């Protein structure tokens, strides 16, 4: 499984490899490595075998359903899949078996993808290290004592370790891009509204977005095309047509105008990360991009804004976990006591902290000072990007201020953990598309990612730029 998603897709189309053999390779790799990595929470072997068998028919007899036909794919455990336990990394959903498919799962199945299993994540996607999973952390394939990032840490690690060529994750404040950077793969957070969230367990509804991971930019583009598009079951999904993202890559980058925001290269940025990102920017310049320094003056307020907006929305979204309709129920004689105990036993520490913070920010007497003010600062952050994009095609920055940190290092300091997302959070607040692409390693041989941020619904430009900076040879961990 050392080939990239797009190479595998091409090999399948050419009949050089068969879906069933591909699935067996993937399962063997998972069995060999997952004891060390803990990327998967569970495999969906029977469903995967049936899907691979269906895709097995010779291409001479059957037209491929899509470029993903026969490709093994993993899903973050936040996507409802009919008949398969879905927990969002939480004890409060232990044993929950959804009676329906999320729209993206339905689309992947229709595209012929072979879904092999559900991947580990921070509980309810709250975290930047996958250590908040109720089922234990995921390890970084480049250094098993370090985190793969989060919250989609399982999705990122599985791709980096070549267990599967592609996975899906979700990104509310960086949960696709940051782990992609920390494990050295490609991760896309599409424009808000580009991909349906129906059947995706909600964290912060004005920020959540679904996106792909792959080893290469073109592979991620192939995945994005299959999952994007309007859905009557998600009111925020856009009716805009879905372009052929992979085809856009061949347009090259000559003449594209790229901004480098000075606020994203300040205090807290690891010098080795800065060096690699600056080298990627030079690569873009050499490829014919026009590069200029810009300012996004309100971005430094993004983390504070995010931790009001996201927690407020989460406190409301997570009110549904009450021990009535699904999940375990705590023993209690009275209803109120039942709610309080079920939630106390079912939620982990970080989820409780965020519910508390969000409830506090929305509570009587504090709403204007916190929630309303945060929404106004959010408008300023968006306005900065609108102003910048009047004269630019994309913005380039580091994805994460550091490379992968040690497991346990930031668990006792929530604020230090939150500051991991300092460069990714503004993108969610502004509803823009962002992509993280590998751009080198530090002196410990830990991967570094560069982030490209685009105009609303202009994922194509990001993919073109991402392809221009991505490495031609993909190094392998383990």
């Amino acid at each position, binding site marked *: 499984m050392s080939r990239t998603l797009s190479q595998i897709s091409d090999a399948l189309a050419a009949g050089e490899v068969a879906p069933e053999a591909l699935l067996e390779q993937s399962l063997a790799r998972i069995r060999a490595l997952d004891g060390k990595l803990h990327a998967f929470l569970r495999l969906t072997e029977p469903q995967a075998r049936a899907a691979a068998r269906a895709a097995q028919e010779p291409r001479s007899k059957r037209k491929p359903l899509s470029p993903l036909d026969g490709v093994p794919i993993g899903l973050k455990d936040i996507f409802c899949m009919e008949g398969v336990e879905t927990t969002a990394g939480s004890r409060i959903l232990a044993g929950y078996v959804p009676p329906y498919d999320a729209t993206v799962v339905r689309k992947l199945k229709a595209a012929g993808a072979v879904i092999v299993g559900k991947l580990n994540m921070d509980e309810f996607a709250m975290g930047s290290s996958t250590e908040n999973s109720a089922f234990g952390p995921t390890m970084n394939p480049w250094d098993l004592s370090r985190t793969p990032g989060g919250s989609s840490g399982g999705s990122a690690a599985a791709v980096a370790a070549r267990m599967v060529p592609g996975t899906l994750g979700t990104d509310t404040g960086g949960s696709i891009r940051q782990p992609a950077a920390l494990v050295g793969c490609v991760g896309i957070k599409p424009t*808000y509204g580009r991909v349906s969230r129906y059947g995706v367990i909600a964290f912060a509804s004005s920020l959540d977005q679904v996106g792909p991971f792959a080893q290469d930019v073109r592979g991620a583009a192939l995945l994005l095309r299959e999952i994007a598009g309007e859905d009557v079951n998600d009111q925020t999904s856009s009716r805009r047509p879905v372009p052929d993202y992979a085809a856009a890559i061949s347009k090259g980058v000559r003449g594209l105008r790229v901004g480098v925001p000075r606020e994203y290269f300040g205090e807290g940025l690891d010098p080795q990360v800065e060096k690699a990102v600056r080298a990627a920017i030079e690569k873009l310049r050499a490829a014919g991009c026009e590069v200029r320094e810009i300012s996004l003056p309100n971005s430094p307020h993004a983390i504070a804004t995010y931790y009001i907006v996201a927690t407020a929305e989460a406190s409301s979204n997570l009110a549904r976990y009450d021990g*009535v309709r699904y999940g375990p129920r705590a023993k209690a004689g009275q209803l109120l006591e039942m709610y309080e105990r079920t939630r106390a036993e079912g939620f982990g520490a970080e989820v409780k902290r965020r519910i508390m913070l969000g409830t506090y920010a929305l509570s009587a007497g504090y709403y204007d000072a916190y929630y309303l003010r945060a929404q106004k600062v959010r408008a300023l952050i968006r306005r900065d990007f609108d102003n910048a994009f009047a004269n630019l095609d994309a913005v380039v920055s580091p994805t994460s201020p550091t490379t992968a940190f040690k497991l346990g290092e930031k668990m006792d300091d929530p604020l230090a953990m939150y500051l991991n997302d300092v460069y990714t959070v503004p993108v969610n607040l502004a509803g823009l598309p962002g992509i993280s692409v590998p751009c080198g390693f530090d002196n410990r041989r830990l991967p570094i990612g560069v982030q490209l941020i685009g105009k609303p619904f202009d994922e194509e430009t990001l993919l073109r730029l991402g392809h221009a900076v991505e490495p031609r040879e993909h190094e392998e961990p383990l």
Partner: protein
Amino acid sequence: MAIDRAQVRHVARLARLALSPEEEERFAAQLGHVLEYIERLSAVDVSGVEPLSFAGDEKAGLTLRDDAPVPSLPREKVLEQAPQQDGKAFVVPRIIE
């Protein structure tokens, strides 16, 4: 901004979370620390700025779909997931004596 244990207890009640005394103490310290960081927003000039709650496609969700009935999930399939049910409804502890 400091937050005391009484406030933590009040918010926990609003959030329907039973906290242990240790959790109350820890959350008071940690939330205080985070709120202190968030305080920086009060220094931002937001006069005349309209709050932004939706940063997506303005045209999304504006068309009404056809008013055509589609089947719902079967009741037994939904009830199957509940910790307690009687085949017709979810069952909860008694709330009226």
